[in-house]
């Protein structure tokens, strides 16, 4: 309770601030509307409710967004092109595919790097440099380019997610696989353990906490990568497409609903990785 109360307080404050801002930001347009309709002397409470119920508000009130999410998920057929569940699933599948590839690639690269000096020296600087390149910014173009080769649908988006998510995994795993202290490596040497045994009995378990910490970062940016990659192709579907079409049509409620869904997905995915982490940690006897 002592941990939830502060969070709830802050959330409540944000909510109140949001409603206040909604009144403030939607007021000019509402005044125009009311003037057109010859409504004068509107009491403030009524006016506020009007600002929270506009069709294309500058800032939709939270309950409008929630209603839109409800209408676009539960109240709609799954196969409908307007269903957020449908678009969310498209984004989610690209995210998961890219994340799986990214994690596998990251682990493999980390294993190569810790076992071979030459690959450490040649790969590591470029892996770090690769992340200062704003690839996310050119993700839509990469998707278009891959589409020209015939790669369409899930795979191009998953490739972007992979590119983004392999990095934290490589960095984390290199750190993790190198985390055993000299004394522990010496111990394995006194047992005349094979490199294979050193890896599976020492390096790999020692790297587990690092792997999960990186996977939490990786899954979050996988999702971001998938959403941004979708901005290129308005017909492909996905949460990114909802953002794009919403912005073309001024459908602010639709944009916010897509954003909320993306946020919810991110939260669920990170929480899932987090609980997998706790499960593995408990198996490995980590301090509770």
């Amino acid at each position, binding site marked *: 309770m002592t941990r939830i109360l502060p969070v709830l307080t802050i959330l409540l404050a944000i909510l109140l601030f949001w409603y206040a801002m909604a009144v403030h930001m939607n007021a000019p347009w509402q005044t125009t509307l009311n003037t057109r309709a010859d409504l004068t002397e509107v009491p403030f409470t009524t006016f506020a409710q009007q600002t929270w119920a506009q069709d294309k508000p500058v800032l939709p009130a939270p309950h409008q967004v929630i209603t839109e999410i409800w209408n676009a998920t539960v109240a709609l057929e799954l196969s409908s092109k307007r269903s957020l569940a449908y678009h969310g699933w498209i984004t989610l599948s690209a995210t998961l595919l890219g994340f799986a590839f990214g994690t596998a690639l990251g682990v493999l690269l980390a294993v190569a790097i810790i076992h071979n*000096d030459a690959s450490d020296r040649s*790969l590591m*600087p470029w892996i770090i440099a690769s992340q200062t390149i704003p690839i996310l910014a050119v993700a839509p173009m990469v998707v278009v380019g891959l589409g020209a080769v015939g790669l369409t649908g899930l795979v191009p988006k998953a490739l972007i997610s992979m590119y983004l998510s392999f990095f934290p995994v490589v960095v984390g795993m290199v750190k993790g696989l190198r985390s055993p202290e000299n004394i522990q490596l010496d111990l394995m040497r006194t047992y005349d353990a094979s490199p294979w045994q050193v890896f599976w009995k020492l390096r790999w378990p020692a790297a587990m906490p690092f792997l999960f910490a990186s996977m939490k970062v990786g899954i979050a940016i996988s999702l971001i990568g998938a959403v*941004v990659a979708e901005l290129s192709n308005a017909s492909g579907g996905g949460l990114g497409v909802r*953002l*794009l079409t919403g912005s073309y049509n001024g459908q602010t409620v639709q944009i916010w609903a897509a954003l909320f869904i993306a946020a919810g997905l991110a939260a669920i995915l990170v929480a899932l990785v987090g609980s997998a982490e706790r499960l593995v940690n408990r198996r490995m006897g980590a301090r509770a």
Partner: protein
Amino acid sequence: MRSDLSSLQLYLALVAAGTGLAGLLAGLPTLGAAPLLTAFYALATLSLARLVMPWSLWLDLLLALLGAVALIASLPPGAAMPLHHWLALFSAWALAWLFVERLSAAIRRGRLPETGIGLIIPVLFGLALLVIWEVVTRGANVPPVLLPPPSAIWARLTAEVPLLWADFVQTFIKSVIPGYIIGCLAGLAVAIAVDRSPFLKAGVMPIGNFMSALPIIGIAPIMVMWFGFDWQSKAAVVVAMTFFPMLVNTVAGLNAASAIERDLMTTYAASYWQTLMKLRLPAAGPFIFNALKINSTLALIGAIVAEFFGTPVVGMGFRISTGVGRLAIDLVWAEIAVAAVAGSAFYAGVALVERAVTFWHPSVRGGRA
């Protein structure tokens, strides 16, 4: 057999010489056409002499470079290259790898100095990528619409300097820098304000952590609606993206000072602000710089993506999206190259300041891990 070669090195040496010999044989009918390439084939085959005599690792580097130069010089214009050129590419690549293996082994054994020499390896790796890119795109006749060769991108880059500069100013100078500064300062200020109250801290930290994991970039269309098409909306996206990493890292960093260090300040009866300025902020330095580094890449991404949702007719994101539409892919790649250089330079700049400011931290003192 020489025993100073590891099995991987031996294997690479055999591959390099074998493909060299195969290339020599396959290219026999047209040998006169490309003397440089022929020389490379012959020398690569000769490198098998390493099995019976000392063979300097620098010879491998020279051979690999010769192979790269010969390949690029003999690329036929507008047609796919002969099959045996692929053998040359493979042989040169094996030689470069062999050189890198031997060089890092020499550094590890302390026979060559780490500083300076160690830099050759990543540079060579980058160079190899460029050469392979150039040879494969031109040699296999990949349509430039798909992936232009580096030489074409470079030509476009040098031809369009004024245009690229205008885009850079619009996106980087006008959007990224102000947004980055405002976002980071706001995150820092809120963190310090929140830090005084354990209750607020307990509330803000989970939300901040949560927000850092969200696709905040998605607010770009909303910001474009609110703040218009020009740089203000891009800067606003950058502010939103950089705020939370800075907030979370600073709050964590302000708790980094150890109990002993804080007790010391208590024994001096130091005021809150004295403790903050003399102990807790310096101790938070590595955390704050971590956020600054994360944010340096986030900021550029945020500004470019925000431009996809509407811009005046200038800006890196605008150029990229319209370039794709008009199939001017080499211009898109030139823009990507500018973005990559700008992003790396920004990151490197922050990292340099970090080294100067937090020189005392083990991660800086220790250098390479």
